[in-house]
């Protein structure tokens, strides 16, 4: 499956400038409200700073991660929004046996619950660990950020974008990348020199700008090659292998049977030859 011929520049993308994020969690609550997700039971903070809940789950599609540490005697108090990356060539869509995930032309990677058989391969495949499962239900479905697809179709922006007063910008992938690059160029001392999400997993629709180095904040290093290409390299050989193995074994088998048949015919001829004189004897 070639991704080189697909134009992703018009897909909708998020630019999350963590240097502008104040960790207010407006996005987190707006997402819960729009998707009518249950609040999780928490007893104290579950991470650094005021972080909650402990992880994304069937009830939490986006979460602000806090980092509260010191570096060279300076305080670092940083926040960033964990969310589905809406990859250009999503691993989840590629491994789903029934094609329940789809990368829409608008950008969001959406999930068709009706198709899902519940194999959870998407959860294994996603390098960002995004799809979550409804473990609380008897017949669970996969849950993840929908990119507010229903809102986009109506000309609105995603709930989190609408709620955020500072950090999140939304627009075409091209425009968001250009904006990110512009900010990095204009204020080089403010930004770490890498946009996370630009090349990860072959390119996603979420771009993060940070001040602190990515690994300090806890961003996962992810290959820059689109994940489906890893399995496709093997799967595209399937028809060939089938024919090769089948053909080889057929040939072998035919050959061996022929050998057998020839040997048997030889034996038969030999036997017949042995039996010949008998006719004369019986006279």
């Amino acid at each position, binding site marked *: 499956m070639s991704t080189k011929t697909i134009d992703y520049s018009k897909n909708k993308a998020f630019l999350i400038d963590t240097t502008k994020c104040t960790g207010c969690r407006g996005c987190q609550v707006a997402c819960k409200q729009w998707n009518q997700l249950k609040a999780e039971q928490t007893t104290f903070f579950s991470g650094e700073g005021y972080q909650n809940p402990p992880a994304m789950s069937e009830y939490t599609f986006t979460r602000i991660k806090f980092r509260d540490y010191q570096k060279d005697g300076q305080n670092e108090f940083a926040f960033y929004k964990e969310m589905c990356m809406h990859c250009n060539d999503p691993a989840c869509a590629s491994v789903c046996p029934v094609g329940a995930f789809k990368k829409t032309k608008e950008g969001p990677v959406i999930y068709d619950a009706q198709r899902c058989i519940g194999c959870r391969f998407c959860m294994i495949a996603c390098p960002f660990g995004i799809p979550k499962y409804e473990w609380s239900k008897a017949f669970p479905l996969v849950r993840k950020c929908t990119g507010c697809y229903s809102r986009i179709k109506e000309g609105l922006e995603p709930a989190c974008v609408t709620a955020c007063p500072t950090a999140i910008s939304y627009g075409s992938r091209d425009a968001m990348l250009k904006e990110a690059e512009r900010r990095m160029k204009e204020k080089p001392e403010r930004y770490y020199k890498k946009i996370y999400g630009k090349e990860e997993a072959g390119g996603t629709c979420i771009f993060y700008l940070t001040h602190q180095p990515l690994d300090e904040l806890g961003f996962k290093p992810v290959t820059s090659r689109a994940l489906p290409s890893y399995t496709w390299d093997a799967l595209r050989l399937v028809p060939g292998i089938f024919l090769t193995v089948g053909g080889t074994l057929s040939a072998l*088998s035919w050959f061996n049977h022929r050998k057998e048949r020839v040997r048997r015919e030889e034996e038969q001829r030999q036997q017949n030859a042995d039996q010949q004189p008998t006719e004369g004897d019986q006279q």
Partner: protein
Amino acid sequence: MTAARLIIDEVKGYHRFLKFMIVLVALGALASLLRFVFGLGVTTNLNDTYPWGLWISFDVVTAVPLAAGAFTLGAIVHCFHIKKLEPLVRPAIVTGFLGYSLVCVGLLLDLGQPHKGWHTLVYWNVHSPMFEVSMCVMAYTTVLFLEFLSPVCEKFGYRLPLRVLRWLEMPLVIAAAAISTLHQSSLGTFFLIAVDKLHALWYNPLLPLLFWMSAIFTGISIIIIEATMVHRYLNQPDESELLEVLTRILPWVLGAYLLVKLYATIFLSHGPLFDRPWLLMLFLVELGVGVVMPLLMFLNKANREDKRMQLRGATMVVFGLVLNRFNVSMFGMIQPDQQVYIPSLIESVVTVGIIAAHVLFFVLIAKYFPIFEHHPETVDYALPDSFRKLDGAHKAPATQAEQA
């Protein structure tokens, strides 16, 4: 006597071991029921960090290669024409058929929406390794079923189907081998997508090839074990001569596998190999006990012929395979900071029940169906005999009559 009475009396006569298997199977069935009543979240220890657990690692990823004897032996006997091993084919087919059927059972339990399992037949995503595997497994199970139908038809004397099946046997064997190659390797393809998750000790682009090769030598080893066991416990003849042939094949396959594995791990993997001591240890045990030791063992003729060593060697190979599959699907996927997954009681009871079901049904099928015959005497010899089972025997009565 009513049918129920018949059955109960029959069962009462079973050996204690079989009765125990029945109990385990019943418990497994009960546990499965609980899974459906209460849901996966409550009955298993699966969670968002470990969406795949014991059922996938054992009942699918491990059980499939364990049932690989059928296609391996089929190919060896009928394509490579090592006719000597023919008596081992049927038991291998039963093992395969039972194995794959139980894989389907395990899958149905693990799926979150099993009632939608048929969707794979309707919604096709050809880019998905799982689509490939499910199609292949469904096809192969059908093939195995058809192969298994032969002894069934023989038992009940269904002539016409037997004829068709006999005629199909060759294509089925070839199809079986081809399909099995695909899905055995695709189970490895599954994990190619876990590029940043599976540890470099196992992650490399040749994973599908390695899975296929290990399926082959595992299939052979399972047959060795199964034949030894049925000799010990089901009064079957000692086939260690035949098994010796298999043990001669094993070192070649094990050796090739070892070479490919070492090459792939050393030259084709990305990322540190020695950074996780536990994983390194598992890797070394898997290779050492599962590949190197049996390889060395079976290079020695005396070991190859000794039925105790045959069993030990084969067991080590199978152990190595099980460990390998768990390493790839579970242990190697654990990230450094994650907590460990331990299967719940229900998960374990179900898996044990599935293994018990395999043993139980194998023994019962062996008991009631012509699995172990070397010479199918009660069959109508007028049927086409593509496999030449009746060489010589066909002629014998006529010759005698002629001579009379």
